[in-house]
């Protein structure tokens, strides 16, 4: 952990402040939490606004104060958690100057957050791609652009390397499989394998495997 990161984590920053809109904001957050929980239990398609307001213990009128319809609420929840994941990843990668290790730190942070909030993880990784495949496509582009910025991705050597968009697909399938199996708590154990997946398109099979051994 670098000095820079410790500075970010200093106690003062985390001291709760109470802005004036805290009541309204926590109400909105309660709706989003309720949506994530209900979707995890019965999928987005089967979730009704009735389910959400019951879970959030708010009235239907309050729901409509924040969101025009179920889909808008869903999109807001997915965007909020995706931003949270991205912020955690960006923060974590500052811990190392070596790019392979920085990627590994980012993956570790993402896995920890997914394990900590399994309903939200399901919302973003299982429900969102079904509701609208383009949502996942957007996140995929952000992740892949971030990785490609680290490496000048040439054709490298006599055999072309793996495709980076497909690498994202591998990671998604592996994590979603653990979530669907109710194994969210074990996600952090996937760090070596996800490091291999993320590095495969950039450094090739042999070197990605070497990095995976360091992650163990």
């Amino acid at each position, binding site marked *: 952990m670098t000095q820079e990161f410790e500075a970010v984590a200093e106690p003062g920053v985390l001291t709760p402040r109470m802005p004036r809109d805290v009541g309204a904001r926590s109400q909105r957050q309660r709706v989003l939490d309720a949506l994530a929980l209900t979707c995890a239990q019965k999928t987005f398609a*089967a979730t009704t606004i009735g389910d959400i307001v019951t879970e959030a213990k708010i009235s239907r009128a309050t729901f409509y104060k924040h969101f025009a319809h179920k889909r808008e609420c869903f999109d807001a929840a997915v965007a909020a958690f995706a931003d949270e994941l991205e912020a955690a990843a960006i923060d974590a990668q500052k811990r190392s100057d070596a790019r392979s290790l920085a990627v590994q730190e980012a993956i570790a942070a993402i896995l920890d957050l997914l394990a900590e909030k399994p309903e939200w993880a399901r919302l973003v990784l299982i429900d969102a791609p079904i509701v609208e495949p383009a949502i996942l496509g957007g996140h995929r582009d952000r992740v892949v652009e971030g990785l490609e910025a680290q490496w000048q991705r040439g054709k490298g050597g006599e055999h072309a390397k793996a495709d980076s968009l497909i690498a994202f697909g*591998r990671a998604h399938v592996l994590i979603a*499989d653990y979530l669907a199996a109710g194994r969210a708590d074990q996600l952090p154990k996937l760090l070596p394998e996800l490091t291999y997946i993320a590095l495969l398109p950039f450094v090739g099979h042999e070197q990605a495997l070497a990095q995976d051994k360091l992650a163990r």
Partner: protein
Amino acid sequence: MSRASPDRRPDRPATDGDLVALDLRLWKLPRGRHGLPREVVARSQRERLIAAVVRVTAAKGYQATSVADVLKAAGVGRESFYKHFEGKEDCFLAANDVLIDDLEATVTDAYAQPGSWSERIRRGLAATLEWLAADADVARVMMLEMGTVGPIATTRFRQTFHRFTVLLDDGREAIDGVPDLPNLSSIAGGAVFARVYEQVALGETESLPQLLPQLTFELLLPYVGEAVAAAERTAAEEEVAKQNANSERGAGTPR
């Protein structure tokens, strides 16, 4: 589940799955009185319902589909429906099972042909892509609609994924120096699954066989590394070029 092996008999015993032709629309029995014994009628009723739930769900989406829609498409009465299925979800999941069994039989047959492990994997993959490309409704129902059904279907979905990745496990014995990663078969198979899912979601199911070279490379890569995977990709490119030439030649002749 049955594991593929080179000595697997290609003439497997007939099961319900084997009776299902890919063109499920052909199942409809002639209307009116017929002299078929009752169990044949019942089985064909079941098959008609399964065909119907696939067609209707592909067209309307699972959530918007009602039992009444399925009855109408199948030409089967409500009472008969409930003799075979508990409800819409049961019928839909039964259809998915029939389709998965058929796909699995197709893939394991292709994989069972003699050759190197990499070659056999490439053939199994080619069979998968062709099977899915043959019927866009079926691909849509299995890949996309399954996700909208609910928790039981989600569990079934991931079990299905592992019914196919388990075929890759032979690779650990078949080749030297396979990486010691616990989820290796998921990492390899995930590449195919993610890319196929995307292609179906884009509505480009018919062109799945064109992905064979790239997906052969990505599927084999975690097991064998770039050099061997690239050699098998070249073989796949030749295969696709041959197939494309054949279909161009056949395009002029009536079916």
